[in-house]
């Protein structure tokens, strides 16, 4: 049994024109010590998926169906108080995208670490908590005396390190890292990622790394889940996703990132935008942007199929791997005019509500 077992999770947002299906039937498991990457464009629902695990979403969002089993505890059934006391931060903590804004500006960084330690551990004195904060700072390469500084006195990289200290202060079993390095410059990015990995190994915690950057996931993750339109369209170990993916969207994503070993490679972007998730129709959600979409793709929602070693793909044509990989590497394939519904009928613009 995995540490975290998400089954058929559906997290919807109430909008004026219906339900936004930000996470729509996702199953995902995370083992102890494992790092799982969630990749996808902005608006694909990867952040909602991750935050659903600790039920951290606005009031208009709701888990409408599915289960999140954390180490035997069903998170969807906990009361708010149980969730706060037993799960949040002590078991599952997070590192936000922009550490600068992750700390309350009017309190010192140290006092915010002390606050969370003392809330979760009744017997820890203020002095002990401070000592732990200082130790964490030291381990993360920040001068321990700086725990008495305010967030605005930190540089971006240092603030991110301090945020990691905050995320680790209760030795959680899972860390949700929401694009932890996008706000930093490239040189620091790498060091921060290394630090995260190192500390993660030290306390043997699992991590869910949310990013749109393929190079980040390939370096840090054991397994990668590709998220599109609120669903996990492909999941496999990192090597398989990077070297021989089967889903056209994964192929497209891979094209959109530079490959250092191949300087001549053109960057190819996927035309179009992520789908509107308000009450989507039947059919593959990637079909409108997919150069390989057939009539079936527009009509029938693909089920996840297993291609061995936990390689799951939601695509009707995933078995034509060689053809797809070859075609997807060509720039012409992704030209906008090549894409669209094959039977020439223009896509319906008006929705029937």
């Amino acid at each position, binding site marked *: 049994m995995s540490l975290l077992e998400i089954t058929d999770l559906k997290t919807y947002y109430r909008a004026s024109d219906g339900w936004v299906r930000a996470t729509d039937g996702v199953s995902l498991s995370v083992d102890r010590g494992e790092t799982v990457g969630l990749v996808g464009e902005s608006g694909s629902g990867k952040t909602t998926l991750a935050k659903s695990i600790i039920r951290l979403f606005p009031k208009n969002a709701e888990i409408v169906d599915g289960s999140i089993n954390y180490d035997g505890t069903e998170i969807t059934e906990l009361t708010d108080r149980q*969730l*706060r*006391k037993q799960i949040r931060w002590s078991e599952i903590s*997070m590192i936000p995208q922009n550490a600068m804004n992750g700390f309350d500006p*009017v309190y010192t960084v140290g006092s915010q670490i002390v606050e969370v330690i003392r809330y*979760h551990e009744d017997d820890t004195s203020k002095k002990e908590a401070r000592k732990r904060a200082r130790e964490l700072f030291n381990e993360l390469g920040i001068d321990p005396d700086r725990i008495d500084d305010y967030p605005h006195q930190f540089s971006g990289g240092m603030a991110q390190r301090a945020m990691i200290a905050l995320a680790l202060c209760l030795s959680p079993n899972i860390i949700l890292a929401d694009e932890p390095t996008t706000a930093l410059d490239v040189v620091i990015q790498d060091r921060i990622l290394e630090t995260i990995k190192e500390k993660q190994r030290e306390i043997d915690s699992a991590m869910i790394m949310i990013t749109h950057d393929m190079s980040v996931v390939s370096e840090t993750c054991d397994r990668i889940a590709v998220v599109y339109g609120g669903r996990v369209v492909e999941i496999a170990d990192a090597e398989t996703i990077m070297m021989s993916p089967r889903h056209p969207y994964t192929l497209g994503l891979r094209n959109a990132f530079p490959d250092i070993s191949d300087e001549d490679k053109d960057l190819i972007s996927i035309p179009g935008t992520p789908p509107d998730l308000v009450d989507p129709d039947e059919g593959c959600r990637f079909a409108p942007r997919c150069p390989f979409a057939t009539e079936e793709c527009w009509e029938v929602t693909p089920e996840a199929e297993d291609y061995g070693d936990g390689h799951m793909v939601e695509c009707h044509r995933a078995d034509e791997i060689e053809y797809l990989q070859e075609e997807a590497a060509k720039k012409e394939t992704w030209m906008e005019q090549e894409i669209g519904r094959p039977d020439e009928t223009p896509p319906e613009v008006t929705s029937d509500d």
Partner: protein
Amino acid sequence: MGLREYVIRRLLQLVVTFWAFFTLLFVLFRLVPGDPTSMFILDGMTPEQREQRIAELGLDQPLHVQYVEYISQLLTGDFGQSFIYREPVIDIIIVRFMNTIVLMGTALFFAYLIGLTFGALMGWWRGSKFERGGIVVTLAARSSPEFWVGIVLLSVFVFWLGWFPSGGMRTTGGELGGGFLARYGSTDFLRHLFLPALTGAIVFMATPTLLMRNTMLDVLNADFIEIKKAEGLPERTVLYRHAARNSVLPIVTVMAIATGAAMGGSVVIETVFNWPGMGREMVRAVNSNDYPVAMAAFFLMGSVVIIMNFLADLAYVYLDPRVEYE
């Protein structure tokens, strides 16, 4: 630059501000038409008597002499004699000034206490019935003229229910004098204070409520609020210790300005409730060209504004670590 240098520099600025304020007052009062004798001319004052009176008051001196005299008197705390009462101004004004401070201080205290609390909750429960109802009530309070609120309260609580006295500061025949506490702490005084202070509180409440709600909405969108929730901290801690604490910052400045406005705007409430405060005295002094009294009243009011702003600046440094000492 350290905190000490900052405070010292702000103090120096305070002195300069006060000097500019003194000078402005002096010039303004020399610019207004008429002089303290004008209202006696109709009563048959002869030109000779008038000249004599003007000389007595020192108004025949050249302006710069008057100015030097004026500044040195202010520095020794001497506001001169009232032209009309022929009593030291300080005796006339200081008691009324205290009466106004007590009344407006109470009103502002409750206005900001209630306003900040409700504003914070309205922001926190955005989109709820509580918030929508709160906005309607607040806007209604904001749009009601002070005198009207006062009259409504008077008719309900005094003439209908008979719970409170209709005006004044204390019951006739009640003892006067004694220390500050005896003067402003007695039950009789508090019963007189209740309605005018409530009127002020209702009128002043809208600004902090709406402002607090708006800044709360901004702060609640900040990333750190989400982190605090993810940390598992209880809602109450996130609301008060983090969200409201950050939202209160802009209110500090507004509060300083509002205090000044309350001092000046007290005249309506004082008139409705027959409160022997400075606002009414100031209006009387201006109407009768009683320069020294009017000037002392303006001086005290202006001083309150200047000092409140100074305190707000200091409070801001204390409340927001991001403020640079520049």
